[in-house]
């Protein structure tokens, strides 16, 4: 690359096929935000069917086609497509690319004082492979077979038989490849390109979170890729890896070899998908830690225990996968083992959360918009985590498995949890990316609307679940016990639509602030970590002079420093 810098790059090389980590980070962020909006829209449409089953909305027939919604009435097959794609899009195309691809790409190299990622071209490749995967997923709606309709978990044998699954699998292969390329890049960058003096225990917690996340992606995704290959073989080459013998479909015995094992898929899937939960939550915790330290104006409490807990969490996340499968008739020895590991893994999560809550103690907190989101993350994630405990114990899981309780649980982790943190991160680093602040008033409006309505959406689900309403029902009112709690469904649906409206201030704020936000200097939050030592927005190559680090990441209010904070690159007096 030496020799081809400095001269002006054309539009395409500068903004589209860029190898600058900041441009790629922005590309990831914008794409992922659009996917989040799209995935959320799918859900808003589904929520109408759930709240008012059988009601026709004629104009939707025009949007989604008469084949899917004749006269505006959603067909069950189409409902299943929306459900499967909502999950897939939110997890694999929305939250992870935003948290890792977006924030990780933009912020991490800046925080370690690197000029770029270790492999800039690979970085570009991982974005475009992700983009292609997204195009395949979206395009699958327009195929004659429609989109996948077997849930985001794609359990066989159903997923082997259902139409639409092939496109899903191809899309996943692209997304997995993108993640693998990205995680190699992240790990190498963090290990090799840290600025002088930036030892591992001077790394901001966000970088630690990204490092552990990258290892999870690197080692947990390949088994799903293997499973995807096996399922593709089942669908395209007529093998029966996941097909038991003598399977009868539409009164006909399938012409297959049989002797496959449907649970093999579940094992391989959850081998990825449980670590994936931590891929979703760890970067969010990293963001929250940065915002908390900055706005409490004091060092993060128990930085080392946070780091050790995160590493331990990473290890443990690989040996809990079968707690998703208690109901498959697992032997008692195995279920005892996985119940134990599941209870153990809650310990590091509690350590992290506790350290963050104690960080608030005795602080003179600045209630900025990012801080509001960060504070809200704590109880929301706590609710999500604590409601997971009954699911990790077989005795209560038997009752709650596959009900709305599960939906409520993991949405509290990912939506009011991770998404709140990601919103906070956007408000926090926006001035770094654009050189301008986002509007405070609109930000607060967005925050309160989001916080309230997220709870309205997901709280009723716990009650529905405890009332045994199954999670994938197209119309719960066909059952008596479903009718009893239909009011909750309606409340939840209205919550979802209001949540949609609550995002309007954010969208306005986001775009308006790019052009009209208040201009600020390179360090508007008086922060200590290295990204604030670079100009806003940072130029190609990031830093004017190569930064040297002299201290830990969160030296706020040190007694010897009258300015109230000592940036990491500030030389000792």
């Amino acid at each position, binding site marked *: *690359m*030496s020799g081809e*810098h*400095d001269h002006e790059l054309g539009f395409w090389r500068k903004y589209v096929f860029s190898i*600058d980590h900041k441009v790629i980070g922005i590309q990831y962020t914008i794409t992922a935000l659009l996917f989040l909006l799209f995935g959320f829209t799918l859900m808003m449409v589904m929520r109408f069917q759930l709240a008012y089953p059988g009601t026709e909305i004629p104009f939707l027939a025009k949007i989604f086609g008469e084949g899917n919604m004749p006269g505006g009435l959603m067909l069950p097959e189409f409902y299943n497509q929306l459900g499967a794609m909502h999950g897939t899009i939110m997890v694999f195309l929305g939250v992870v690319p935003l948290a890792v691809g977006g924030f990780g790409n933009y912020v991490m190299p800046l925080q370690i004082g690197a*000029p*770029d990622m*270790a*492999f*800039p071209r*690979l970085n570009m490749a991982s974005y475009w492979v992700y983009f292609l995967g997204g195009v395949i997923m979206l395009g699958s709606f327009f195929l004659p077979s429609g989109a996948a309709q077997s849930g985001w978990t794609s359990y066989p044998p159903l997923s082997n038989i259902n139409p639409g699954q092939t496109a899903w699998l191809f899309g996943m292969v692209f997304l997995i490849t993108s993640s*693998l390329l990205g*995680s*190699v*890049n992240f*790990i*190498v960058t963090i*290990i*090799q*390109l840290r600025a002088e003096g930036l030892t591992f225990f001077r790394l901001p917690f966000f970088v630690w979170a990204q490092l552990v996340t990258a290892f999870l992606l*690197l*080692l*947990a*995704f*390949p*088994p799903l*890729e*293997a*499973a995807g*290959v*096996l399922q593709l*073989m089942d669908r395209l*080459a*007529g*093998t*029966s*890896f996941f097909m038991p013998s003598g399977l009868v479909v539409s009164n006909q015995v399938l*012409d*297959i*070899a049989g*002797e*496959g*094992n449907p649970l*093999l898929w579940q*094992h*391989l899937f959850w*081998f990825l998908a449980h670590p994936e939960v931590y891929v979703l939550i760890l970067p969010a915790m990293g963001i929250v830690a940065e915002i908390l330290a900055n706005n409490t104006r004091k060092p993060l409490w128990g930085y080392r225990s946070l780091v050790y807990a995160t590493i331990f969490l990473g290890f443990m996340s690989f040996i809990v996968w079968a707690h998703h499968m208690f109901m498959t008739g697992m032997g008692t020895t195995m279920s005892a083992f996985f119940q134990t590991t599941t209870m153990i893994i809650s310990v590091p999560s509690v350590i992290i959360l506790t350290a963050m809550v104690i960080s608030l103690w005795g602080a003179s907190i600045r209630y900025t918009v990012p801080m509001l989101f960060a504070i809200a993350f704590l109880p929301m994630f706590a609710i999500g985590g604590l409601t997971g405990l009954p699911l990790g114990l077989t005795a209560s899981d038997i009752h709650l498995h596959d009900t709305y309780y599960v939906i409520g649980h993991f949405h509290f982790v990912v939506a009011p949890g991770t998404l709140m943190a990601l919103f906070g991160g956007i408000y926090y680093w926006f001035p770094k990316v654009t050189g301008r602040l986002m509007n405070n008033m609109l930000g607060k409006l967005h925050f309160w609307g989001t916080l309230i309505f997220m709870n309205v959406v997901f709280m009723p689900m716990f009650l529905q679940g405890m009332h045994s309403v199954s999670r994938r029902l197209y119309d719960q009112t066909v059952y008596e016990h479903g009718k009893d709690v239909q009011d909750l469904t309606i409340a939840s649906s209205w919550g979802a639509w209001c949540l949609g409206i609550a995002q309007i201030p954010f969208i306005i704020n986001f775009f308006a602030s790019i052009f009209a936000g208040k201009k600020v200097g390179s360090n508007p939050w008086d922060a200590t970590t290295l990204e604030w030592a670079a100009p806003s927005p940072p*130029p*190609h*190559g*990031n*830093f*004017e*002079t*190569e930064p040297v680090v002299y201290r830990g990441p969160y030296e706020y209010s040190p007694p010897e420093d009258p300015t109230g904070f000592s940036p990491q690159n500030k030389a000792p007096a």
Partner: protein
Amino acid sequence: MSSAEIKYIDKPHPLTGVTNAKLGIWLFLASEVMLFGALFSAYVLLRVGATSWPRGSDELNVPLATLNTIVLITSSVTMVMSWASLKLDNFGKFRRYMGMTIALSLAFLVIKTFEYTPKFSHYEVFLNDKTSVRGHLGEKHEDHILFTPDPEKDGEHAGVHPEEMRIERSDIRRLTNFGPRHSNFFALYFTLTGLHGLHIIGGIVVNTWLMFPGSAMWKTQRERFTGRVECAGLYWHFVDLVWIFLFPLLYLL
């Protein structure tokens, strides 16, 4: 420092002692270990759960596979020699050894094709009385098929070519060639060797690039180019290593 000058692309990092590329390729190989590991555990799971499992040597062509093992191991040696030649500043020798590596990997694919093709024209008919016949498919009709069974391997009729026979469709439970759909054994065989074959093709692409257009870097950045060849070598040895396990697993056990 207005441009993005990445450190440690040719010289190793003073603390870790490796270049970015070398750490990167090892991380990539770590993920590959997990990919093949997952398929390996799928193999164990399906085999242990199966009611019967054929012995690989009865079903597959062991001589061809042994030949392929030898070809691949040799290509690994020529690969490491091409890297050593660069270390000795002998670019001509590098090209020669790299050329041999590519030729051997192409040979591997050709042999693989000879191994694959007959499987797709060789059939097995599973009959309703729980027996099965192996052989070659003749004409297919609405109500019956014509089928030439294989000669018996041992016993009194060993080596005698049986006549074409007529099998009623109503007697047939399942008719399949020895492709992936035949049984879980063949499904695993084709999936594992196929995926391995894709890795071979990937290696050929990279090595060809390094041999021709990529080698322009030798003139400008020697260390970096040698590092690239070393990384390609690590990948290639890994592909060899996978085959070393696949060979007994599929062909011999």
